[in-house]
């Protein structure tokens, strides 16, 4: 993402692979002993930190979802999380995230391809990537309010369309509904897609296109047989990350709907803030466990795709 300008060709593993200088040089004996001891020692701070501030809370969620309020083992939380309104919340969350991810991924890919093939690439690329960096990180809250000013009941675009005779709120649109959330989510999914897919798009070497052209392939055949298959794993991988990103989003939905839309993060939030019965204090953990499971499945797919991608794009 931030490749320094000075190192164009030599990158990553490929650069280091032909240097197996094991056992050469006067220091190698001492080095290998430190290497053995230090391999784990040097990673201890990181491992401890992750275990404490990520591992402990996660384990507490997992264990808590199988306990009742007094700590006895029970399946009632998990069962409640998998039925009724909470099951519907999961389905709604998945539907929303899938819609936002697919739309965001396709549009982001279009933008990345347009950018990569642009003749005046450098400046444009700088503008688009830095803008993407900002927009992908704006955070849900400011974004929600900016969209209220744009497509809310009194938003500028809403009023402009109404002045042209198209009252979108009469036509069934609402910013505070499923469709509205998709529109807002796509706004932060596209920049994320651009940032993630750009290395893969850049990885398509011009020479491959030229080689295909030399062999008589049309542009279409190039994309059908070379470019497309090469981009596909990276595209699907990024799509999965976009899905998890939308699935985990809480702030946008909360700020837009003040907690009325029934998606899982919002449900967990209101369970935490005590907007529900007291005897369900571990239900939030069961919902959390459900979210972890959904994301874990998606991320396992992602890891598998990553291995396929990295085989090509090194």
């Amino acid at each position: 993402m931030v490749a320094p300008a000075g190192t164009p060709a030599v990158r990553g593993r490929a650069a280091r692979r032909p240097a197996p200088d094991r056992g050469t040089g006067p220091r190698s004996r001492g080095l290998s002993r430190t290497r053995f001891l230090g391999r784990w020692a040097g990673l201890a701070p990181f491992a401890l930190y992750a275990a404490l501030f990520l591992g402990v809370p996660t384990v507490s969620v997992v264990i808590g979802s199988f306990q009742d309020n007094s700590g006895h083992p029970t399946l009632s939380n998990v069962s409640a999380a998998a039925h009724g309104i909470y099951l519907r919340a999961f389905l709604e969350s998945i539907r929303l995230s899938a819609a936002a991810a697919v739309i965001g991924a396709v549009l982001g890919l279009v933008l990345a391809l347009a950018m990569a093939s642009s003749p005046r690439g450098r400046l444009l690329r700088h503008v688009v990537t830095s803008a993407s960096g900002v927009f992908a990180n704006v955070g849900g809250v400011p974004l929600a309010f900016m969209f209220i000013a744009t497509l809310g009941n009194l938003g500028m675009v809403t009023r402009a369309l109404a002045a042209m005779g198209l009252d979108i709120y009469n036509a069934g649109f609402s910013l505070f509904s499923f469709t509205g959330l998709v529109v807002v989510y796509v706004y932060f999914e596209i920049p994320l897609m651009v940032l993630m897919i750009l290395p893969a798009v850049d990885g398509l070497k011009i020479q491959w296109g030229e080689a295909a052209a030399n062999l008589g392939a049309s542009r279409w055949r190039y994309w059908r047989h070379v470019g497309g298959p090469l981009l596909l794993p990276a595209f699907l991988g990024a799509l999965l990350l976009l899905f998890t990103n939308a699935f985990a989003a809480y702030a946008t939905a909360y700020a837009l709907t003040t907690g009325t839309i029934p998606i899982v993060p919002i449900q967990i939030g209101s369970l935490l803030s005590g907007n529900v019965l007291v005897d369900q204090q571990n239900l939030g953990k069961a919902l959390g466990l459900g979210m972890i499971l959904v994301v874990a499945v998606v991320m396992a797919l992602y890891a598998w795709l990553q291995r396929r991608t990295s085989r090509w794009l090194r």
Partner: protein
Amino acid sequence: MAAVSTAVPLPVTTGFEPRPRRGGRVVGTARVVIFVLFAAYYLMPVVAAFEFTVRGTTGYNLSSWAYILSQPDLTATLGLSLKIAVGTIAISLLMMVPTVVWVHLRAPRLRRVIEAVSVLPLVIPAVVLVVGVLSAFQGLPNVIKGTPVILSLEYVILAMPYTYRVLDSGVGAIDLKTLVEAARGLGASWLEVLLRVIVPNLRSSILFSAFLTLALVLGEFTMASLMLFNTFPVWIVQVGQSQAQGAVAVSIFSLVFAWFLLFAFSLLGARRRGSRRRRSA
């Protein structure tokens, strides 16, 4: 890219001459249309938001901006968020830079493991993590769990996927082994190697990961609000409940602020890169 470069002329005519790429102009026009549409989509909310903040009952005025700027909570909450950000960035870098360097240098086979751990925060959504934090750390001393310190500690985790990735690709782009061996061969201690050889070479990666962390912290709402800390994004939502125009104004402010920070960070990185190139030339 617009024209096929035929740098390697074929010795014999094989019948498979490179075809001139057709439709260059059409593709160019389509590209312009794509860029214009995206620019419109991305600028529309910004413009609309600004129009919204200055809209009065009769004409346009700046009263909502004046209202926001007169709120003492603006500086208080922004200050708190910045303090949390500084803490997060400090912990993040102190921990992640040595770890990434170590993995590349000493334990390349563990790279996959560390990478897998570093993306775990993407698997465990912040809203779930906060549930765990609230129940697991009930017993901790109040200095940690009752103050924004806990936010810094947890934001390090939330930022980890990005921090690790950026630093990892930064370390991958330099010839770490040679640099370290040269420095060690010349008698530098490990601390000197880290601070005077590796860190300057990773400068742009470090700056970029610091920026990403800063942006994340300044925008993080989920944990802060559910743990009842009054950070900047939490305050924006509070304002929004009574004064929509004011909340939109602060939203624009935070967007512009993020943009300004990114610009400052990339300027720092660019200046450094420029000076290095001059020196080596």
